[in-house]
């Protein structure tokens, strides 16, 4: 402190800062709740400016994780090798089947003159922060619009769907995990082709809602993205039905969401065709910007 204030004034300032800041926090909570878009730019700017620092801090952790995996791998090599040999044998058969099916598929597509699927490209990004706490399920990755990421793109790993991008800065982006309370993903149950929406509720197993025919769902059914709404590519594996109770089925995700290291962000070539924010009559003001395309309101 360079400015010397009289003790009385300093005491007065100290006395009033705390109540003012408390009121300010409360006001921010209410405003942020009333208008979800209000703090978006601030949030993106904060994320962007702190991303390099977080990346640096999380690097040793990532290295330690890799080392741990390597040491563990050292002890399990033998068993792992046998398992892989067996798996390889099985997969070779599947490969043959897949090749046959691909040829078939191509022929049939030719017959019905199907529109060719859009080319998919990936960006791989590392998780640099997660949401510590019980009420939000997000992770931050170290790639952003500089790497041509865009809001709404799907984040996946080799196992399946992780979430979607809700916020993209130039160097970092936030992924809303499928388990988050605000996550809504259009899915389809593979065996019965039943459409539904996968709704997170902050638990480890998201629920299926808006099921077209609930009686068709069985435990063990595979669930994949339906691609409805045009935001996600169809057919990304999501999980399997693991619980059936009165409140509806729950899904066990294929991806271990608490142990994310690297994510692939899928550019399905659709981000340009994401429905643009719909212009609302000016009277409704800023909230009109949120657009109808959101399956879930971003926080």
């Amino acid at each position, binding site marked *: 402190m360079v400015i010397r204030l009289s003790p009385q004034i300093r005491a007065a300032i100290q006395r009033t800062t705390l109540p003012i800041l408390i009121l300010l926090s409360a006001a921010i909570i209410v405003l942020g709740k009333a208008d979800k878009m209000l703090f978006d730019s601030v949030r993106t700017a904060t994320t962007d400016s*702190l991303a390099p620092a977080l990346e640096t801090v999380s690097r040793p952790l990532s290295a330690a994780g890799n080392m741990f995996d390597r040491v563990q791998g050292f002890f399990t090599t033998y068993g792992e090798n046998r398992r892989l040999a067996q798996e390889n044998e099985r997969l070779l058969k599947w490969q043959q089947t897949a090749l046959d099916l691909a040829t078939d598929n191509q022929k049939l597509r030719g017959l019905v003159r199907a529109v060719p699927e859009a080319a998919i490209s990936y960006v791989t990004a590392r998780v640099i922060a997660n949401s510590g706490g019980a009420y939000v399920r997000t992770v931050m990755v170290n790639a952003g619009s500089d790497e041509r990421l865009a809001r709404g793109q799907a984040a996946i790993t080799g196992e399946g769907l992780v979430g979607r991008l809700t916020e993209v800065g130039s160097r970092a982006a936030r992924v809303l995990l499928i388990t988050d309370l605000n996550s809504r993903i259009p899915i389809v149950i593979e065996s019965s082709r039943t459409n539904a929406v996968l709704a997170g509720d902050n638990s480890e197993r998201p629920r299926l809602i808006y099921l077209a025919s609930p009686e068709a769902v069985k435990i063990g059914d595979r669930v994949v993205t339906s691609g409805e709404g045009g935001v996600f590519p169809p057919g990304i594996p999501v999980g399997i039905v693991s619980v059936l109770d009165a409140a509806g089925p729950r899904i066990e995700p294929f991806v271990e969401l608490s142990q994310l290291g690297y994510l692939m962000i899928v550019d399905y070539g659709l981000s340009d065709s994401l429905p643009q924010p719909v212009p609302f009559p000016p009277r409704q003001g800023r909230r009109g910007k949120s657009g109808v395309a959101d399956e879930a309101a971003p926080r």
Partner: protein
Amino acid sequence: MAPKVFSIPALPRVNSVAARALPIVSTIIAAIVSILPLRIPGYAALTPAFTLMAAYHWTIYRPDLLPPLALFTVGLTEDLLVGAPTGVSALLLLLVYTVVLSYRRYFVNRTFPFVWSGFTILAVGAMLGLWALHCVLDATLLDFRVTIFRTVLTIAIFPVASFLLGRAQRALIGAG
């Protein structure tokens, strides 16, 4: 009108920059630690409230070096970074500061179990409040079990945090 609660005349003055910065810096570190992506199953949801520990420790021992503005900034930044409803952490830390400050005289120069019990009460209150606030904000009844586990974990980790903070405090600021 004499300031009662907010003037803390008994604390020794420290001049070294490192010592003056320690409470704020350690609170920032606590905030960073709580968002580090540790690959432990289920950890993200159960991450102990490290900033709460730092705020409690420094409000008891050196409230003069932890201005409310710092708590507000750290809390707000944390919310912005994790994508939580903006302002919740800031409000929580400031309320914790207010409450602890008013009971501060009972905790200074007390044995650790006493300080720990104080933290236990505080953590239970804070987590309950946080849960209630999130329920209101999300307009739904959120699973309470996670909150219970997180509270227990936070209370259980506090001795470690308190030890580290105390060590740093003695090394840089001296006994306080």
